[in-house]
């Protein structure tokens, strides 16, 4: 377990050591969250590296990563805890067959930790060998308001109540990272609890650094061209602009194809790695790709 960073600069270095190229704004938010023990809410388009932040933090700080992937209809049974009903029923049957008569004792036995199945939120509150874990609550916008309200309670006190067992409280609060793709607005009350940061597309300089650190196999000239091209098409009126994840995928794809420089034919053939909507691909193919690529090289 590594010590928490003591300044914004240290935070930047820490992220850098995990191959995450962050800007100073993001480092500031992460530093403050660690220092003040507040959850971070990261919003941004898909593929800009929100989830990655949690993974890198877990790796560099040497903490366990507990991930709760949200989806519509996520409920307490799959997020916090559930009882092992089959096991419980078996226990009741066996007790009956054995002629047990004390109902209170049976109830205490059946509703004990032995039959409790712990889901991510409860796991995050337990003591961990590597120190307080990183709790990643991914794509919160996919779940509904009811779950959000429940989460609010967990995030303010870091405790959960299991009616049959009592309240379970974390000795050390986990480091919480919440991400959202903004397919719906997160409620103000939850936002108030968190430090907010909008993860935007990186500028050319930072994107090149990311590419060099994550796809070191790509030739320098090709990397430069890839970044310029992606930066240029992000400015166009597309339904979904490519994220950093797409840039990296594309770079990997081009390396696999042994490309050393961009040419219109190569771009046309691999456009599907970069753009995921047919309208966008058509629009790009219809435009003058050659002129675009030439202008990048100029």
């Amino acid at each position, binding site marked *: 377990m590594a010590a928490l960073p003591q*300044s*914004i600069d240290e935070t930047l270095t820490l992220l850098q050591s995990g191959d995450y190229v962050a800007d*100073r*704004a993001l480092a*500031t*938010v992460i*530093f*403050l969250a660690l*220092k*003040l023990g507040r959850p971070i809410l990261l*919003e941004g388009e898909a593929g800009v590296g929100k989830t990655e932040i949690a993974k890198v933090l877990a790796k560099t700080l040497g903490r366990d990563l507990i991930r709760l992937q949200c*989806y*519509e*209809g996520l*409920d307490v049974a799959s997020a916090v805890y559930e*009882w092992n*009903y089959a096991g*419980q*029923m078996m226990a*009741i049957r066996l*007790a*009956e067959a054995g002629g047990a008569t004390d*109902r209170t004792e*049976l*109830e205490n036995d*059946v509703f004990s930790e032995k039959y409790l199945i712990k889901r991510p939120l409860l796991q995050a509150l337990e003591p961990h060998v590597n120190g307080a874990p990183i709790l990643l609550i991914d794509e919160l*916008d996919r779940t*509904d308001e*009811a779950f959000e309200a429940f989460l609010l309670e967990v995030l303010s006190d870091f405790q959960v109540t299991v009616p049959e067992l009592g309240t379970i409280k974390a000795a050390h609060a986990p480091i919480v990272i919440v991400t959202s*793709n*903004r*397919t*719906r*607005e997160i409620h*103000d009350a939850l*936002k*108030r609890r968190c*430090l*907010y*940061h*909008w993860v935007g597309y990186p500028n050319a300089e930072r994107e090149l650094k990311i590419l060099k650190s994550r796809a070191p196999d790509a030739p320098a000239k090709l990397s430069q061209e890839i970044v310029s091209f992606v930066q240029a098409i992000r400015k166009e*009126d597309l*339904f979904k602009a490519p994220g950093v994840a797409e840039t990296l995928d594309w770079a990997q794809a081009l390396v696999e194809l042994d490309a050393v420089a961009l040419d219109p034919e190569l771009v046309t053939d691999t456009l599907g790695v970069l753009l995921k909507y047919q*309208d966008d691909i058509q629009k790009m193919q219809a435009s003058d790709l050659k002129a675009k690529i030439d202008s990048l090289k100029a």
Partner: protein
Amino acid sequence: MSGRLAENITFFARALREAGLPIGPGAVLDAVEAVEAAQIGTKQDFFWTLHAVFVKKHEHSAVFAQAFGLFWKRRALIEKIIATLSPHSPGAPPDDKKPDAGALRAAQALLKQSKNEEIKEEQIEFNARLTVSEREILQRKDFAQMTADEVRDARRLIETMQMPDDWVKTRRFRPDARGLRIDARRTLRAALRSGGNAMHLERRERAEVHPPVVAICDISGSMAEYTRTFLHFLHALTDKRRHVETFLFGTRLTNVTRALRRRDPDEALARCSEEVKDWAGGTRISTSLHRFNVDWSRRVLTQGAIVLLFTDGLERDGTTELGREMDRLHRSCRKLVWLNPLLRWGGFEAKAEGIRAMLPHVDEFRPIHNLNAMKTLVEALSAKPSLATDPRAWLRRAS
């Protein structure tokens, strides 16, 4: 930490609030704590530290940046604060001078001035546009006040409204004696209560909720006479249902959801009137739908949303563009319902080019005889799908 810092942050928070950011007193305390924790060395760090606490929405970022510049520029305030905060310097000599008497007012005035500048810029932009597009007319709109009867009738009508397919099953469960699935938890608890001799199986079923409704309404000149009715309808609907998002468009798209959340219908409509700049002017359906598709569709068309599109479909610009945008919209939502008031003329046929471009991409086409009364609007929405609402039938009839 010096009281001066807390004071200045309080003033800054007030200035932000004035500029429209929702900032509670808790945020001010958080900000002071954060600034102390961050050991700030540069102006940039100070900016991002306050940003992390005060900005809770991407849209507010620009306002924050502007207010930050205006507020902290004064009297080299920021340098002094950094000097006292920086771990490298032992602390700047204390500033004995009291803050200027008008400091707060000055900041507010600055902010107000900047708002005016924004408006000016917008007007310039509009003037420039006027030369290329002939039809954008910016104007205010005054709605007649609602009578008490109207408000009461609206409530009652919304209660009775039953849109087809208006329930979606969620993935959550509720107890239901006739449900198909067994509720293990309740079964087990009941078994314990009864001593475990005979087990009564408790059951559960999927809970159902209303899907979100997204209304996209045309408020151009040709629709002007209906605007009041459908805004009133949407206000009542916003009041009644969980998720209703409303967008108005003439030549540009405006989201008026927050305005319609005001409880009082007159106040809500007055708010709308303030926010929208292009009442009763020209129409650019495809441009407006394009903006919706790019900026909003992914944010509001979730969890099986139904889209209600109020427009007469009289588009003058390119109809191929319109077809493409309608197609995109149609594929992003669960159901697309088009309400068209053109049927007020008895022999309406889907002949206009814009209408023919839009029809293939809607699930239901609901023409309305008289959109002036909310009753007919509710009836049109509640009607069972039939040949009269089938867009393909309308296309066939017209060809």
